[in-house]
């Protein structure tokens, strides 16, 4: 039987990446609770405004808001709210640890250094995250996000965003007597009292500004997010499950992932209930949220690509522009417009596909519409790696193959398998317990350098931070063994202070040798973040009323 989720009980960001649903501007607030009673009053004041997962179309639909609002709590936030010890005890260890204590596992603290050598690793974090230490006045308790629509044709958020912000400030000040406070400390100077997220905009020929799916390295981001049972209407699921769910067999095709991979209280892909605190009613329909501010060293990226592209152009006998775009796309696993290398493995194939898709239409409006249609289509997500085991098209250690391994790890794959006949029965079984829902937006303006503020506000939702997010980060981003790449880290997101190589296989028919980049530098650095619990609306009510009873 198809799962019917109580969508009005689930927070809206679990089912929707707001940035893709025309909310391209966001404010992320972090708060501290110094008094449990004031904290519960705060939760009760916020709760009616929380955006739920209820559908915005169809019968009995909720109205699409101008500004969304969602809320989550750190472990010590829940402690500060006075939750019973037995409930707190039921939370997973990594959640109680928080992101900073997990720095070694995540690779945020360089694992090639001893603890002594790595001292001060957090100096580059934004002040709010640098000072986020348990049992101090810097401890972060609450994550609260607002996503706003923009005035049509501009990059200005609707006025309701500022109004909602003022309302939040007044709730803290007046209803909570200042015992719940919005924490400052964002950005280099630490002055901001929220972190802004904002899509990168492009100018249409008529001068209108339109949000794009690009990030600061120039690539389309957020394509191919997973889908789970009950998340979408039946029609939407049929349109989106291909390439985003799990591939069962050639007969069964793609199916949505089990609900319990992302929501507590539901069976997961191991046919178990994910570990969750008591009482049952408190944890059901909740999820864990990883908030991570990832700074992008845009100048270093351009410099390294430029230097490598000169050698690549010489070795491969191609032009400078082709060399640069090919190199960085091989690192990512998609071409800048989002076309997967698994589909178009060479520059010429990519250009040909762009032509067929209408991405090079002389009318910019048509080209933009074609690009949007393509990214939303199954074609941008439904591809596999078992047909390219040597990585001739999409290198084995590229970013895309690391973060979503698809059918690459099927044990029956032939290591030399290449072409459509290579193990067509390969499934995504060994990948389906390692998926995360990605939410978030870029931040900062374009045209900066390493020292300016730009990057991605990365957010991941999952049922187990340890099994899903941390596994991907530790084993697949900061390590390369599953991709026959030894200690080499993800070319895009990895720490390259010790490991600077990235191997690019060449197609045998090209007659070219493989190419190894060996001058990688760290392009993406954490600026802080933490782990939060995203309660259901029922749980919010229980917290607000102080009736969480685990007995």
């Amino acid at each position: 039987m198809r799962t019917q989720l109580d969508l009005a009980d689930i927070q809206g960001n679990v089912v929707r990446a707001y940035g893709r649903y025309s909310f391209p501007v966001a404010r992320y607030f972090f708060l501290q609770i110094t008094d449990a009673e004031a904290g519960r009053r705060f939760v009760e004041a916020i709760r009616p405004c929380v955006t739920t997962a209820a559908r915005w179309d169809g019968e009995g639909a909720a109205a699409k808001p101008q500004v969304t609002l969602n809320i989550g709590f750190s472990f010590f936030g829940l402690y500060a709210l006075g939750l019973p010890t037995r409930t707190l005890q039921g939370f997973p260890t990594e959640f109680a640890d928080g992101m900073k204590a997990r720095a070694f596992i995540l690779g945020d603290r360089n694992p090639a250094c001893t603890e002594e050598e790595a001292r001060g690793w957090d100096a580059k974090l934004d002040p709010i995250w640098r000072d986020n230490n348990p049992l101090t006045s810097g401890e972060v308790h609450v994550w609260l996000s607002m996503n706003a629509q923009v005035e049509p044709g501009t990059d200005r958020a609707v006025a309701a965003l500022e109004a909602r912000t003022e309302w939040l400030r007044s709730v803290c000040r007046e209803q909570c007597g200042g015992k719940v406070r919005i924490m400052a400390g964002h950005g280099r100077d630490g002055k901001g009292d929220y972190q802004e997220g904002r899509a990168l905009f492009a100018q249409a020929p008529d001068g209108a500004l339109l949000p794009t799916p690009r990030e600061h390295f120039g690539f389309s981001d957020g394509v191919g997010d997973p889908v789970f049972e009950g998340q979408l209407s039946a029609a939407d699921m049929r349109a989106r499950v291909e390439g985003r769910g799990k591939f069962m067999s050639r007969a069964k095709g793609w199916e949505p992932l089990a609900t319990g991979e992302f929501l507590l209280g539901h069976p997961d892909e191991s046919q178990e209930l994910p570990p969750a605190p008591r009482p049952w009613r408190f944890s059901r329909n909740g999820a864990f949220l990883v908030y991570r501010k990832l700074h992008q060293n845009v100048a270093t990226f351009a410099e390294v690509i430029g230097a490598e592209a000169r050698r690549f152009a010489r070795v491969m006998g191609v032009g400078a522009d082709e060399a640069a775009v090919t190199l960085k796309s091989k690192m990512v696993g998609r071409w800048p417009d989002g076309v997967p290398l698994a589909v178009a493995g060479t520059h010429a194939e990519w250009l040909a596909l762009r032509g067929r898709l209408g991405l090079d239409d002389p009318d910019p409006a048509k080209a933009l519409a074609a690009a949007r249609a393509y990214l939303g289509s199954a074609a941008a997500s439904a591809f596999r790696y078992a047909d390219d085991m040597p990585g001739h098209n999409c290198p084995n250690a590229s970013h895309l193959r690391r973060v979503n391994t698809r059918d690459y790890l099927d044990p029956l794959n032939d290591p030399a398998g290449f072409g459509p006949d290579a193990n067509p029965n390969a499934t995504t079984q060994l990948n389906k317990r390692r998926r995360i829902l990605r939410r978030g937006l870029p931040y900062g303006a374009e045209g900066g350098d390493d020292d300016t503020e730009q990057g991605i506000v990365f957010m991941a939702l999952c049922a187990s931070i340890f099994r899903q997010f941390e596994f991907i980060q530790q084993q697949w981003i900061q390590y390369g063994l599953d991709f026959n790449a030894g200690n080499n880290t993800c070319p895009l997101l990895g720490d390259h202070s010790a490991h600077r190589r990235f191997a690019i296989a060449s197609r045998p028919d090209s007659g070219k040798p493989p190419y190894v980049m060996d001058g990688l530098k760290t392009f993406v650095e954490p600026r802080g973040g933490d782990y939060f619990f995203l309660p259901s609306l029922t749980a919010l009510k229980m917290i607000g009323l102080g009736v969480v009873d685990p007995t």
Partner: protein
Amino acid sequence: MANFDAGSYFLTTLAPIRPGATQDIDGSTVSFRQRLATTLATLPTALQSPATERTGVQSPFAQSQRTHLCRFAIIDDAIYNGRPPRNPVLTSLFGPDPIVADRPDRLNAAYLMFTAEIDAVTEDGAALPATLSQAEQDAVRDAWARDIWAKMPGTVAAIWGNCLGFQSVDGPDSFARYLARCQVETTMPFHDYWIAPPDLPRLPVKLIAAVALAPLAALALSLAGWAAGAQKVPLLGLAVDWAPWPTAGWAALASAAALWGVYRYAMAHGARPFPPPARADLPSVLKALFVRERLADFAIAQQGADAEALHKAFGAFLAACKPEDATGPTQLPGVVCAPAPEEPDGRTRRKAEV
């Protein structure tokens, strides 16, 4: 028979730890078990983490040119898993009385477990053998024990001195005898130096099936003939004058013998050791790690070089690296990688920038 497999010797020993207490160097009273635990905790490991690499204090076992891996563990007791499950109906009819507690399984002492995977040779650098008699296997173990004693007598005494029966050990031969006394069979060795699947003999399945099925078929035919009240065994009766009844008995005996024989044959076949993989001895493995790293450095440095320059550079690489010479230049035992050659800018490649 799995102490020896794939050219390697898999040693598993269990030594009972002495009961009672002794005086520690600081004058305090410690049990032998406590003293052993402290000794093991302070025994240097191989240099495989940033912290141990910086100390440079190497595991004493890295002096051995035959030891791939070794490991100590203290087994305090058998883990109590609760009362064994029993059928409640049968228990209520026949006992035992569930009110009476079962006696938990306990060990008679804490044990020191020591395991090692070593090249099955008696001389450093010798070729790995494909087969070894029991006596030859014992010789491998004893030669290794004598080598360890010679290289680290103090460490051996500091560890096994806390165990029962070690008091009479006073030299390499008595240490070898002591380890042999403590040895238990390794039943599940794991060897992972295969770069290609081994060329294994196949069981003659058809022949085995024929041997096993022939008497079974005779049995079935005899029984069918007996049931039908025939004078002779069907089909077989065309060739021989066998009556169903005694034939069924003989066929049953023959079937049992054939099945037992086939079972023993298959098991004996399976118990034969795998052949050694190519270049799986420790010096060759270390050399391979060394060559792989240097070859990767070489290949990257030569990207885009023309054929003549590449040929010349490869000649120089071969001359410097000597890939066929396992004695050197190579990587030392007990480290993750050989020290990297210095780069022009003075920094070594693999050391992290702090």
